[in-house]
């Protein structure tokens, strides 16, 4: 059975792989394939955010009583990431390679530093204080 850290870290890596694929396709000008790959990347990333926002964060907040702490910051960064995904999607529709790659670069660094904080601070704390198998199960059923 996965710990929360293992389960969600694995999802981070899957999203990274999916983004790397989109970036490669955009860079080579394979727009149609890039659009399909982007859909997969966007779907997976937003689903990951949903799992955290609808299951993990409320569980953490309920258990610890910390509502305006780390989880709030993570939600704010999710909002920033969603906005960048939207801008990437617009660039993809316009087949604007330069804007897509530039926005993607900003997205990538934002999401990596966000992931670092989750993987190194928040998830281990969740594992420490929550019933990991139960929380993973709840996220799976979303």
């Amino acid at each position, binding site marked *: 059975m996965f710990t929360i850290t293992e389960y969600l870290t694995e999802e981070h890596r899957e999203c*990274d792989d999916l983004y790397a694929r989109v970036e490669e396709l955009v*860079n080579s000008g394979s727009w149609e394939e890039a659009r399909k790959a982007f859909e997969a990347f966007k779907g997976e990333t937003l689903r990951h955010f949903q799992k955290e926002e609808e299951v993990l964060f409320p569980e953490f907040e309920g258990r*610890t009583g910390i509502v305006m702490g780390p989880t709030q910051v*993570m939600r704010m960064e999710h909002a920033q990431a969603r906005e960048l995904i939207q801008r990437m999607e617009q660039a993809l529709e316009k087949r604007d390679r330069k804007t897509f790659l530039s926005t993607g*670069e900003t997205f990538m660094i*934002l999401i990596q530093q966000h992931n670092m904080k989750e993987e190194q601070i928040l998830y281990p704390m969740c594992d420490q204080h929550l019933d990991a198998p139960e929380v993973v199960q709840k996220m799976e059923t979303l």
Partner: protein
Amino acid sequence: MSFPKGLSLSQAPPFIVVSGFFITACLLWFLGSLLEIYALLTNRLSIPLLTHITTVGFALFTMFGALFQMLPVVAGAVIQKPKQKAFISWLLLLTGYLLLLFGFYLSSFSALLAGASLLFTGIAYTSLLMLNRLMRIKSYTPTSQGIKFALLFVLIGGFSGFLTALSYGGYIDNTEAFLKVHRLFMLFGWIFLLITSVSFQVVEMFFVTRAYPRLYAMNFPYLLTFALIFSLFEFKLSNLPLSMLVFFQALITLHRLFTRKRKIADKSLYFWYLSHIHLLIAVILLVFDGLSHRFLSVYFLFFSTLITGMMLRIIPFLVWFHLSNEGSLKVPLMSEVIDQKLINLCLLLSFALSLSVYLLPIIGLALIPAFMHSALSFLLSYSVIRGSFLYFRLSPLYNPSK
């Protein structure tokens, strides 16, 4: 229920803390290059002078600045009142550095000792400030584990540097022993270990590569400690374990970069390639030459190339990140903060500097690398200052109307 004290993922330090250290580092590197040229022309260039221009003026300032930013992100260690504490650190380090440099340049023992004392005070203040926060938090990752060791080693390196300065004045004996500890712990225990600890996180995440083996990465600081202690002994090939460890780390990093999943080749990737090729060459020289001038010059290329590449990426991100968090109406993308052409030119100059250093034994004209150093550090300073000023121009904190 207990939580690490000060845990807050929101408390990244203000932009001015990190940019202040970075701008200072770039300017000191550039001004140092001018001193280097002048010292060459007047036959007053010494290895300690040249060494400290790059290791303290450039690397130490950048690395402490980066740590102020990284501690909350990688370890959840938040330094309260970061502006005030960073200013104390900056002031001690800067005055210490300038006095030390004058001490070396003018061969003035009093300036040297005053500089070494202040510099060590600055290093001790900053590293203990950070260690104090870090030691309260369990290390879950190789990065936060490695940072703890690196901060401990910079403290040892700084203290042995201070003792070396005292021994120059005849106050204590054993100059050579203190100098060896100082060099090994600063070059490998501090600079190399900090870069490696950050690599464990950054390489995998930014370039989408396979992770470093966890057992290896978590135990890397212990392996390095063993290798450093081994190197302190005086016998043939005592540097071999250290060289092998560094060589392996450089190879494993290059392998991961070559086999990365993120195929797009942004310029920071080339800075990583170039710097790690320098590292491979430097450690080969270490085995046969020890801590020689040749080794030092190639080792400087390793970390200055990497720091240059990382700085050109970190500043644009921080500008975007802070403006975005502050709700600025106009938030530039990273590519709009530092022009791609400037980054390309910095890369080109890094190649040129590297080439001029390698060809120095053949050409024999030290002014060429000195001019390359000057050109690169000028361009880096211009890029970093221009990018940082964009933040101050657009930030609602500094311009309430925006």
